[in-house]
């Protein structure tokens, strides 16, 4: 009796194992009707607008019934998890064997982490990738995306990060245009300290809004403030190269000094929303291009309410290099993704960005997200004219795309900027908030400490 029971249990276990193996085996390839299918998972950014756009594209692609070895490719679009962060969602998916074949929302820093972990494909030598690069005329932009000479990301969009100025505030200071050089900026800050009454009349109480200067957990904000300033002042000198921290010390000091010039007029208290207020209370912020549609909703007019100013350069005529907030697509190379699924994902991306479809796809992207697609012909191609006319702020940003530099190509990027915030911007704030605008305290000791901390964090010389 006992023997019978034991064999019954063994049989049940075998049945369970067989059923689960069958389901697992069918996860990649399914037989629907007479035709076998290759199921390809595509993860979009957590935002609904991106999910809707990619779903439409996937549906259109699925209707083409594209085949690989007689099997039809079916692209399934899902939103990547938003918590704890989209990057952590991808990490979790890779760790648990549930990674998609391809996802968007990958920046250069995260791509470096993925590349160092050998979980993404190098696409630089793929013929289809070269065709896409040619179709989108993105050869120049792509140079800044290389990681150790390879390419792990197909860039989709780019937001040049620059200064966003309050036009009424500038007028109260007697300025008819945003400062372009460090000297002009310093003069504006001195004027800020001297014209507080005039500024108060237009609602401006603070020069700069940046509570995150003291928050190491928001290390990414150092890309947008410090790195943006450094890229312009140093004229695009690298920060990290060949496993060495090569950040120019004097340029870094001058860059932190720019932040120091805001002095005690910096706004560190939280504000609900700066630019949709009737009278924004700050003179300048770092721009947030993803909010352009929101400004339009609130009736804010580019040139009348706010205006973008270039990253500050040392001398007139220097190139206003800035920071590229840019993300793209990566193809995952993990054990749960079969060769067929990878090829299916490639077919889908090829279809979206090939010579025939890329301009239309990028136009749809621009219309849906109001973020600039990574294309060399964005200002010349007539297809984009209508949208750029609708959003003059976008057209202004498009001019700075050629000078936009994406983040560092290192898997230690979060560590580097966390350390920088801890030893440079956060303690420097304590000193700068004791001085009047225009009189930056000496940033030298903070940068010296930052260089050591960054080396330690990045484990480089």
């Amino acid at each position, binding site marked *: 009796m006992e023997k019978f029971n034991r064999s019954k249990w063994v049989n049940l276990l075998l049945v369970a194992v067989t059923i689960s193996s069958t389901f697992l085996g069918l996860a990649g390839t399914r037989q629907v009707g007479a035709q076998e299918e290759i199921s390809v998972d595509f993860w979009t950014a957590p935002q609904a607008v991106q999910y809707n756009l990619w779903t439409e594209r996937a549906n259109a692609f699925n209707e083409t019934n594209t085949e690989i070895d007689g099997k039809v490719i079916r692209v399934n679009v899902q939103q990547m998890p938003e918590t704890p962060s989209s990057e*952590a969602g991808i990490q979790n998916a*890779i760790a648990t064997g549930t990674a998609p074949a391809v996802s968007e929302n990958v920046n250069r820093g995260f791509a470096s982490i993925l590349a160092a972990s050998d979980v993404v494909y190098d696409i630089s030598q793929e013929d289809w990738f070269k065709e896409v690069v040619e179709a989108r005329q993105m050869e120049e932009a792509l140079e800044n995306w290389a990681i150790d000479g390879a390419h792990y990301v197909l860039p989709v969009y780019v937001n040049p990060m620059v200064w966003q100025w309050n036009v009424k505030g500038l007028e109260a200071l007697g300025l008819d245009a945003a400062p372009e050089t460090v000297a002009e900026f310093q003069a504006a800050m001195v004027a800020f300290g001297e014209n507080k009454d005039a500024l108060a009349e237009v609602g401006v109480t603070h020069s700069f809004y940046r509570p995150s200067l003291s928050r190491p957990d928001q290390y990414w904000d150092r890309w947008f403030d410090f790195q943006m300033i450094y890229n312009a002042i140093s004229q695009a000198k690298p920060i990290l190269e060949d496993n060495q921290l090569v950040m120019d010390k004097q340029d870094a000091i001058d860059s932190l000094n720019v932040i120091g010039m805001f002095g005690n007029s910096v706004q560190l208290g939280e504000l609900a929303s700066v630019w949709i207020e009737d009278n924004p209370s700050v003179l300048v912020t770092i721009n947030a291009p993803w909010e352009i549609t929101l400004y339009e909703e609130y009736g804010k007019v580019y040139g009348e309410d706010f205006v973008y100013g270039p990253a500050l350069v040392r001398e007139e005529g220097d190139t206003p290099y800035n920071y590229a907030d840019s993300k793209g697509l990566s193809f995952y190379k993990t054990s749960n993704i079969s060769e067929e699924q990878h090829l299916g994902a490639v077919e889908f991306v090829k279809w979206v960005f090939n010579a025939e479809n890329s301009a239309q796809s990028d136009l749809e992207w621009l219309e849906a997200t109001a973020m600039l697609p990574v294309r060399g012909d964005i200002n010349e191609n007539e297809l984009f004219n209508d949208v750029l006319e609708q959003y003059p702020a976008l057209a202004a940003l498009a001019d700075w795309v050629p000078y936009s530099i994406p983040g560092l190509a290192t898997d230690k990027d979060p560590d580097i900027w966390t350390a920088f915030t801890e030893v440079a911007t956060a303690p420097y704030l304590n000193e700068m908030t004791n001085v009047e605008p225009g009189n930056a305290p000496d940033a030298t000791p903070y940068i010296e400490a930052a260089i050591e901390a960054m080396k330690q964090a990045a484990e480089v010389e």
Partner: protein
Amino acid sequence: MTQRKSSNKRHNTVGWILNSPYLIYTIIFFLLPLGWALVLSMMDWNLMSPDQTFVGLQNFTDLFKDARVQAAFINSYRYLIPIVLLCFTFGLIIAILVSKLPNKIKGFVAVLFFIPYLTSGVATSVVVKYFFNYNSIFNIFLRETFGLNINWLTDERYAFWVMVGIVAWKMSGYYALFILSGLENIDGDIHEAAALDGSQGLHKLFHITIPMLMPTLTTVLVLATGLAFGIFTEPFLLTGGGPNMSTTTWQLEIYNASFTRFDSGYGAAMAIANAIQIFVTLRIINYFTDKLNKKFGY
């Protein structure tokens, strides 16, 4: 004899079967992750790379040199003292006040005090963020009436106390329910006898009520200690652990190491160090509360 053995065996089997759901749950959701965390803590691994480098105890030795870990270690005690005191005091006050209410509304009022506990930490943090916003009515009032311009969440002197205030507000009502239940269990005869002996007001509170509540208060103390070591949502959403790491916690640092810097092995080592600190602290607290309970005859 043989029959008895067989009956015991049958009872044992039934016991194992009845306990199996909990045992399986414990193995899957407690023992396996704990074992996995121990293994992970000895690796330099980001959970993604095929290279899983075994580093022995290096992650643990690195903890001693890490300023963030030091801050989390110290902050856990900085949080512990005011949170336990405030939760304890407000819990006791709320419970005593509610216990004096007529039976008809007692339950309803007790539930009202329980609501903050049910409110999500995220929702509370969002409300607090708006409340301490530079342009909030509260801050405008402070500026215009007293000339006070306070950056509540970015100034080291205030941010920590904002965190403490939120946690104490959220949890006091919850602990009050424990204390209220303890109060209701004190026999009316004891209060009567105390009154006959002339014990009233604060004298009765300190010499009758609190000693009678000792087992309940011990539970509250242990729970509040655990709470103080587990703070995450409030600093995560409001301060990020800053300014100058003054509000950081173990949970926040574990999160940042594991999911922001993708240093999962180091994050696991932090989690184990945190568990050891909680265990040791609770043992010390238990030692003293046991002595106190013995003193009062429990």
